[in-house]
């Protein structure tokens, strides 16, 4: 467990270092954290979730994923810091202690491991998975256009060479299917939060249509308060709204799928950008970004804890 104390959270890390760090986290917090392999990626890399649990059977749970778009390094780097924060605050911060006393948290830090490895070795700007597309020289599926939620509709491309290629069918990307299977088999997820970068937004469904969701007012209110908490640290400004209304119509997204499958508290973060670096946020921004995001994320998790359904 000592490794997690010396681990440098203020730099970006390669996949093997992150996977090694996960083992240290489990060793350092054996009664709280376990590493769950939910399947393998297209290129056969293991896909791990850190499960934070104080016991119980099939407790209500919160899903958090980061790095589904591999070039969004700040997303994964922030998730690393937040995992450590949640672990070290348990038993110290009454809010985190209470949360984990009632609910489990599943945190997926590298949701697209093939893409992440590829950004470190071949193409820093790679966004998609690395699957071969039949009949095309272009590889990869946009794993946030591949979910069974308005699949193949506006805001996704049928062109395998596009950065937003939706893939041949819903859940065709094994990375997506592994998560879908976990969520469905578990059956008791109450929140689904996806962490992206960049452009400073907190979004809720829908993306595939511009119609309001039935819980629009509640999710908008939760989102605005979460952003208030986030902004309280450094004044970082966020916009809050549905994907369709504050970015653009995008079909096949993860939080639309989770919402339509009964996970009411479905949100997506787009983390900080200084306005100058895009996906290349300097490493000295990692901890400030993670720290402010944690405040917003914690607000959502507290709300979910206090509003069972």
């Amino acid at each position: 467990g000592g490794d997690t104390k010396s681990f440098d959270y203020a730099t970006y890390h390669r996949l093997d270092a992150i996977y090694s760090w996960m083992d240290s986290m489990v060793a350092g917090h054996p009664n709280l954290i376990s590493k769950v392999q939910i399947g393998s990626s297209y290129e056969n890399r293991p896909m791990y979730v850190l499960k934070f649990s104080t016991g119980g059977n099939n407790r209500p749970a919160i899903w958090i994923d980061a790095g589904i778009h591999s070039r969004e390094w700040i997303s994964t780097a922030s998730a690393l810091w937040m995992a450590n924060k949640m672990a070290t605050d348990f038993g110290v911060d009454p809010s985190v202690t209470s949360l984990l006393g009632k609910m489990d948290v599943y945190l997926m830090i590298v949701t697209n491991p093939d893409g992440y490895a590829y950004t470190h070795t071949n193409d820093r700007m790679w966004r998609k998975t690395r699957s071969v597309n039949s009949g095309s020289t272009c590889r990869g599926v946009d794993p946030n256009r591949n979910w069974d939620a308005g699949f193949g509709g506006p805001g996704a491309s049928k062109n395998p060479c596009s950065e937003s290629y939706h893939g041949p069918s819903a859940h065709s990307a094994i990375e997506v299917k592994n998560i879908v299977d976990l969520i469905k088999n578990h059956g008791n997820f109450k929140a689904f939060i996806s962490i992206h970068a960049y452009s400073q937004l907190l979004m809720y469904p829908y993306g595939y249509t511009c119609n309001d969701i039935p819980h629009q007012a509640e999710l908008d209110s939760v989102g605005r308060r979460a952003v208030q908490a986030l902004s309280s640290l450094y004044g970082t400004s966020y916009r809050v709204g549905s994907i369709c209304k504050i970015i653009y119509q995008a079909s096949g997204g993860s939080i639309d799928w989770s919402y339509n499958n009964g996970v009411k508290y479905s949100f997506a973060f787009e983390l900080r950008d200084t306005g100058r670096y895009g996906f290349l946020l300097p490493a000295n921004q990692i901890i400030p970004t993670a720290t402010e995001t944690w405040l917003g994320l914690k607000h959502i998790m507290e709300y979910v804890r206090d509003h069972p359904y």
Partner: protein
Amino acid sequence: RKVFTGDQVLRVNAKSEAQIQLLKTLENGEVFKLDFWTHPSSSDLPIDIHVPYASLYAVQKFLQDNEIPFHVMIQDLQELLDKEQEDLQRNAVK
């Protein structure tokens, strides 16, 4: 390793729905091999476009001809990537 020497990222601030529509046609085209880091949807949000060096002249001319305001956000993408790589290697050694 793919290199991005001379590639720029342009930040575009569309002023009208008509300009948004023009940018959407640019996004849907494949000739310039553009990578939209943020997408044209409303004039409230800036649109960041990664433009390969080979397409820079044509894209900037397109924006100028249509009087769409923009500025260069990243002058040379490869320079930033090189710096990031140096930081990564330095931290790995540390």
